[in-house]
């Protein structure tokens, strides 16, 4: 298929294709991080993850409207405000849900699947009733649109760079929080042995609530960022949920590093295959290889050793 093109053209396409893979990687990491925390650290299968993301997207939409109507001079930076608000909105909702529903189900992990699936339906209908069934368009400041021309043929998407930067920042923040802070130590202690952690004076209920809140908050930020590349509507969250679970399960549920490694593998495979094959075939092949690898290695790519 390449015989018709010059070397320069091919080179630049490979560069851009590599970049496309990196963007996909960042998107996967961003959407899976929140779930990895909740699923990996707490064992809760949160089917409503996508809806927490969409709450963030709606917050972004309303922030943009607010800035447009009241302080248009600051419209250029509204996105940062929106992301922070999205974090707190989704986080707060997450903590409320944990308190009202999830904490009653810790001993019945499979029931959380059903309960959170129900929750996702409820949230979808709430969004539909409150915000209307139609999709909304989130307006972006001018500087976040378009692409930077690097050479004549190589162009780099600005929103792609933005998502990458954001992903790196959040991943680093989560890693520091989990592995360097006192709170992270408590979370990991609770994961490894809940009873023992309680016995040494860790308030396990509080740890659970904040962990769930953090996971949902990150989902909110992801949703906020995805208004740049995707749609914002009551059911848009469903677009992400399958890929998110795929990344988390493939990576090995309890490992942050695993999530990143699996996001990288899947995104590169997907984006390369999409280039050479058609979209649907690429998806089928990706899913097929994930299924085969999980058959050979059911615990996922990475696993931490825990004394059971």
């Amino acid at each position, binding site marked *: 298929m390449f015989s018709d093109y010059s070397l320069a053209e091919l080179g630049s396409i490979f560069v*851009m294709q590599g970049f496309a893979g990196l963007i996909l990687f960042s998107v996967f990491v961003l959407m899976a991080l929140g779930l990895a925390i909740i699923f990996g650290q707490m064992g809760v299968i949160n089917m409503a993850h996508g809806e927490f993301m969409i709450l963030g997207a709606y917050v972004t939409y309303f922030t943009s409207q607010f800035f447009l109507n009241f302080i248009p001079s600051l419209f250029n930076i509204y996105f940062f405000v929106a992301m922070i608000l999205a974090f707190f909105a989704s986080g707060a909702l997450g903590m409320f849900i944990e308190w009202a529903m999830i904490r009653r189900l810790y001993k019945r992990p499979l029931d959380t699947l059903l309960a959170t699936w129900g929750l996702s339906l409820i949230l979808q209908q709430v969004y539909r009733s409150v915000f209307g069934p139609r999709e909304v368009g989130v307006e972006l400041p001018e500087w976040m649109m378009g692409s930077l021309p690097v050479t004549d043929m190589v162009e780099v998407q600005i929103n792609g760079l933005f998502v990458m930067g954001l992903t790196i920042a959040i991943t680093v923040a989560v890693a520091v929080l989990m592995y360097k802070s006192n709170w992270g130590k408590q979370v990991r202690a609770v994961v490894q042995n809940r009873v023992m952690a309680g016995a040494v004076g860790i308030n396990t209920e509080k740890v659970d609530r904040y962990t769930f809140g953090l996971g949902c908050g990150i989902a909110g930020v992801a949703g906020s960022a995805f208004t740049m590349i995707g*749609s914002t509507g009551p059911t848009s969250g469903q677009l992400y949920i399958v890929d998110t679970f795929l990344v988390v399960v493939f990576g090995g549920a309890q490992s942050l590093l695993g999530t990143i490694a699996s996001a990288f593998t899947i995104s590169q495979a997907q984006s390369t295959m999409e280039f050479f094959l058609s979209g649907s075939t690429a998806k089928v092949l990706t899913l097929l290889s994930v299924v085969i690898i999980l058959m050979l290695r059911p615990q996922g790519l990475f696993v931490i050793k825990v004394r059971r």
Partner: protein
Amino acid sequence: MSSNNDNSSRFSATRRKLLMGMAALPAVPLLAQTGLLTTPAHAQAPATADVNTTGLAVTDDEVTVGILHSVTGTMAISETGSVQAEKLAIDQINAAGGVLGRKIKYIQEDGASDWPTFAEKAKKLLVQDKVAAIFGCWTSASRKAVLPVVEQYNGMLYYPTFYEGLEQSKNVIYTGQEATQQILAGLDWVQETKGGKTFYLIGSDYIWPRTSMKIARKHIEGHLKDSKVVGEEYFPLGHTQFNSVINKIKLKKPDVIYAAVVGGSNVAFYKQLKAAGIDLSKQTLLTISVTEDEIDGIGGENIAGAYSCMKYFQSLDNPNNKEFVAAFKKMWGEKTVIGDVTQAAYLGPWLWKMTVEKAGSFDIDKIAEASPGIEFTKAPEGYVKIHKNHHLWSKTRVGQAQVDGQFKVVFETPDLIEPNPFPEGYQ
């Protein structure tokens, strides 16, 4: 979910009919002659027994119809507009005196974006409510689920969406375009005006885009002068990452991108095209899946410059449409937009009313027979006529998307295009 489902009135209506049938019937003409029973509402209305011989929900002053769309679930995004249009049409018909002197009452059911639910609700409307017509369905999947039901129970469905064709039924009137009406004229136009010779086809992966692209490919390869398809791709519904295919498009440099991507994917596709630096004012893109409704979600600034091939645009400049747009906005709010399918849904109740009045009966068989030839001169899209294959004669138009979310009409076929749901040589 049935906002107008009033059980008590239906019950009393049945009782009234029963009483009339048993005892009061002989007395009615007598009373009518003496002027005791004549009220203005059905002064000239023909007797119910004459216009309704099959036991539909028709009384002396009311006729019940069904509205069957998704107001919950993924499809609510698209189907909301159709529900609004149908209610507007019913309101207007009632204000103008109803159908055969009877006011239209509707029972709304929710298909919930779930195809078996559509079939079940259609059965409920036909068997239990005995509705005289159903205005509804949106996706082809929901129509395919409802089709056997309306055929088995002999109902009448008015289906608003442009669709892939290859279907025709006595019990369905298709008020949207079948595939050839939407595709062929648009492709001819793009070659004539833009000199398009190479085409890149891209769509969501299900029956409508695949069938449409098949027709488009046959037309491009067989009927357009030295044109060829340089790529054809389908993506799963809900796919949100288009960077790889955008790179492929950049490599192949097609004259025309021909797109039929739907739903959430649609938004992602245009946002990512824009981000990748593909300027739609320079790169010709022709789509058959973007109406004003979709632009709401995509954002006008992301799609400005692209061309869309439809039969109706909100910006159409004719007196019918001005009236329609004003009435629609008055009923549903200044900010609502009206897409192609919304307009087609608006035609349904009107076409049904005219057919009933031509047939002089609510009976389904008579309506099916009377439908061909029905003309609607007040249609917002202009003049339409029902073909004997139960599709509409209508024009094909091309509009260019503007930043404000509206289309500028740049082309319309001079004549009405004949509907041809089984196009020979295109299958």
